[in-house]
Structure formats: C-alpha cells, structure tokens
C-alpha cells in the first residue's frame, strides 16, 4: 500500500475524503455511507436539540473511535455567531477542530471572507484547529494561512450545486504557495470531480451532497472514495504531457509487408 498519509494539524489520516453527515434518509443510511466512503473525518452541524425525548442522535451513528468529528459553523452569518458555535461545539464534541464557515449570501451560500478571516484570527488565538471554508481566492487563502489556520478549504463551486471544479486554475495558484493542506470544500458532484481536485494536487476533498444527493448514496460513497484515491495516485504518478498530435503506442518498425 502507498505510504502517503494525510497530515492535518499534526494528526495523520489515511483517507483524503472528508464527508458530511447531512441530507441522508436516516441514521442507518448515514452510518453506512460514512463506512463505505472510507472517511476518517466527518463534519457535523450544531443545532438546538429537539425537546422530544426518544429521538435518535447523530452521535449514535458516529463511532468516536473511528471518526474524527469536524463540527461546522454552517448557518452563521458573522464572526460572533461562528465563534459562539465553536465554543459550544468544543464542549460537546471534545475536539478543537472546527470547520469555520461564515456565510455572506443566502442564495449562493458564498462565504463572507472578511468575517471568516476575523473569526479565524480569534479562534486560532483560542486554540482551535481552524479549517476555513473560503472562496477560490489565492489572496484570501494566503491571509487565512497567515492567520494560523490548519488548512484552507476553497470551494470548487457553490455548496450543494454539484457543478464540479469551476476554476482549476485558481486552485493551482492557491496550491502553488500554500504551506498548509488545501482541501476542496463544496461543489463536487461526482467521482470525476473528486479525482480532478486530487489530480490538481489538493490534499483532500470535503463533500456532503455529492454523496447524499446521489440516487444511490451508498454506491456513490464508494465511487467518491475510489475517485479520491485514483486522483491522488495520478497526482503522485505525474500525468503524461498533453500532445496535439498522435504518438503511436505500438512499434512503427517490423510491420508486415
């Protein structure tokens, strides 16, 4: 097996696929999709508990020994709300890892990078391992890295859109200078999108709807697992150069006359 660990904030992981836990039919499907994806890091959201006893808890579906929890701040529109959510998540999840997500627009769910950066600076000082969702903007990626974030997570396309890698060139520019892991977060719609992200040299891919929104989420969980692995291997292998014209694969001499 390839010895190619994914190192995030000093922790070593084998899988480079990070998956969300939203939008599944039920907890059984969530549990099975996570297992088939091979993911070791899973995102969760923080919400008010339903005051109706007897409801199944997501935490029953996620074995804390098997998965590292990555609480998100989805639904937060300013730094203060995001920080408040992180404080609660730390208490609840016993983890310093946070997926920082400060949304700036309800329709596109694009990040408010100004608020994201402001929150990131505060959270880093408070000892959080901050993984920020951001635009595919190399300048903002650099600022987040300078702020002490453990990774930078540019979107490939809007959250839940499944549009794939819309701007591979910007991701390449981010990758060129980043010294922290670059994780594509949002927009991956199918296995080839995940492979493209990895072939570009991204260190990991984070997705939710790409799996949960498939007709068969469990099969897609496997496809995404395989796509990420294939893309990573192709990146490490180094692709052949593109040529405009053909180059025969079979010997040109020794043909029958």
């Amino acid at each position, binding site marked *: 097996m390839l010895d190619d660990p994914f190192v995030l904030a000093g922790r070593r992981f084998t899988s480079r696929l990070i998956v969300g836990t939203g939008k599944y039919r039920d907890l059984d499907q969530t549990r099975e999709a996570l297992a088939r994806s091979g993911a070791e890091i899973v995102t969760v959201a923080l919400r008010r508990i339903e005051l109706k006893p007897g409801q199944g*808890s997501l935490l029953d579906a996620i074995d804390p020994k098997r998965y590292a929890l990555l609480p998100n701040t989805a639904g937060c529109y300013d730094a203060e709300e995001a920080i408040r959510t992180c404080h609660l998540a730390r208490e609840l999840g016993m983890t310093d890892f946070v997926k920082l997500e400060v949304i700036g627009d309800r329709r596109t769910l694009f990040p408010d990078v100004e608020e994201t950066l402001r929150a990131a600076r505060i959270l880093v000082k408070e000892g959080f391992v901050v993984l920020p969702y951001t635009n595919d903007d190399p300048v903002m990626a650099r600022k987040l890295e300078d702020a002490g974030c453990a990774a930078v997570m540019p979107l490939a396309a809007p959250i839940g859109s499944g549009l794939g890698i819309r701007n591979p060139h910007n991701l390449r520019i981010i990758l060129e200078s980043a010294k922290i892991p670059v994780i594509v977060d949002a927009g991956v719609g199918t296995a080839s999108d995940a492979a493209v992200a990895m072939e570009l040299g991204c260190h990991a891919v984070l997705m939710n709807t790409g799996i949960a929104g498939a007709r068969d989420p469990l099969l897609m969980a496997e496809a995404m697992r395989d796509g990420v692995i294939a893309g990573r291997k192709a990146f490490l292998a180094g692709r052949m150069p593109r040529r405009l014209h053909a180059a025969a694969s079979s010997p040109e001499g020794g043909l029958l006359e």
Partner: protein
Amino acid sequence: MEFIVTVNGAARTVPSGCTVAHLLEILEIDPRRVAVERNRDVVPRQSYGATHVEDGDQIEVVTFVGGG
C-alpha cells in the same frame, strides 16, 4: 417557588434551586449528548450539577445534527 426560564426559545417553569443537571433531567436529555449555554456562556459539562438556573435565564441546549 418556581422560576421561569427560556429553553431553546420557549418559556418553561422550573423549581427554584434547579441546577443545569436537574433541568436536563426534567427535559429527559442525556447530558453526554448536548452542550449547554446559560445567558450566552458555555456551561462546562463538569459544572452541570453546581450551576444553578436563575429566574429569567436564557438557556440553549444544543446537539450535533447531520451537516456538511
């Protein structure tokens, strides 16, 4: 004597002297599955038994749900 507190946005009557631990018991909530905020400050898990709820408190009880 009773207090009125707001739990997740809804008013609720609790006995005076009620602690966060007792409140969770009344609500039939497993304390290991939640985090609690009292007047916007996180209540550490180990302090549930020692933290008293006061009249007019704003309490938030949160848990993890599916999300991306």
